């Protein structure tokens, strides 16, 4: 009798402990999910007060991996291969993005942006939206905005088409043509062409940069403007 009672008690304790472990794990998951979500939505605040810069006409060059070409015809050509979700590309953009933009605006160099999408569905959506923005003449603005709000978690669900439109709206791209282009995935063929051209140019990861067709390799542990600028000017 006493033995049976002890056994029943033992079983109860076992289930209580198992339930507690499950509770801890579930709480951890829910907490992580919520904090990730909050952080991503809060990141849009980084775009507050952004003003849309004057449009720059761009072309798509099928002869060069269907890249977005800005300021064609310069003797200096810079190829930038990036995936919108790649965290190291964000570092590159933070260090050198403004400088590259100035090269385009001051007509110092031709810059070809190869927008890749090998990091998953959200890269595909973001790349599609990038080409839509290029049609509006606002590729650089959108590119800058994407990296400003990039989630540290890849394919988290953050970059839905709607969120990409919200991001564009926030920086001043408001045309219904853009919205349509994002929602319909109108640029999927160009997105694919960019991705498919990686092998031809021997690009294995991002960011990869060529200056006048020559692979640029950084020497310093992090990207820094002085190093990149020197490499561009020397070319």
């Amino acid at each position, binding site marked *: 009798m006493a033995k049976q009672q002890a056994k029943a008690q033992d079983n109860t304790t076992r289930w209580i402990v198992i339930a507690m472990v499950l509770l801890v794990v579930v709480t*951890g998951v829910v907490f992580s999910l919520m904090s990730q979500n909050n952080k991503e939505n809060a990141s849009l605040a980084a775009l507050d007060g952004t003003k849309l810069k004057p449009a720059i006409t761009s072309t798509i060059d099928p002869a060069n991996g269907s890249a977005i070409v800005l300021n064609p015809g310069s003797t200096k050509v810079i190829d930038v291969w990036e995936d919108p979700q790649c965290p190291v590309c964000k570092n590159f953009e933070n260090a050198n993005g403004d400088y590259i933009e100035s090269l385009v605006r001051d007509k110092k160099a031709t810059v070809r942006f190869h927008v890749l999408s090998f990091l998953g569905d959200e890269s595909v959506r973001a790349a599609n939206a990038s080409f839509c923005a290029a049609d509006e003449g606002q590729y650089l603005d959108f590119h800058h905005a994407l990296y400003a709000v990039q989630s540290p978690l890849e*394919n988290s669900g953050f970059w839905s088409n709607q969120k990409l439109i919200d991001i564009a709206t926030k920086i001043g791209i408001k045309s219904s043509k853009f919205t349509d282009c994002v929602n319909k995935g109108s640029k999927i063929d160009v997105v694919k062409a960019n991705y498919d051209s990686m092998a031809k140019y021997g690009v294995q990861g991002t960011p990869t940069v060529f200056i006048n067709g020559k692979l640029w390799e950084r020497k310093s542990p992090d990207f820094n403007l002085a190093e990149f600028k020197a490499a561009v000017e020397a070319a």
Partner: protein
Amino acid sequence: MKNFNARFQPIITLLARLVLGGVLLVAGGLKLNKPTDSANAVAAYKILPANLAHLVGYALPWLEVAIALLLIIGILVRPAALVGGLIMLVFTAAIASVWARGLLIDCGCFGGGGEIDPSLAAQVHRTYFIEILRDLGLALAALYLYLFPYGKLSYEKAAVEE
């Protein structure tokens, strides 16, 4: 051998609990405050769809710490060892799968994770091998605990009538 085990079993059980529990505690503890890294690390194995991989990444550190505490304190050692051993086998299979598919990643076992530059391939393959050996070793410790859950310094004691 049988005599040896009969004599030292309570101490071996204690050691197995501390080793398996200790590794899980460190592994889980290092990842607890970096859930995003953990979620990315699981996704980098490219076995599960992204959103499921993220959930596993969020859950794993907590599960590891919970199992570790049960093992170290000595509560429900048999079920805890069963779960601990199973996750070690899952880790082993996951690393083997990544290796077979030619992916180069940091396992993210103790935090970190993600893809690794192709130039480090040889080193990564060596690391995979060591990780598989380590996880299989820990699975053996778990098996021992499943067979002999009662040992020294344990909250839970063997039932007297056995």
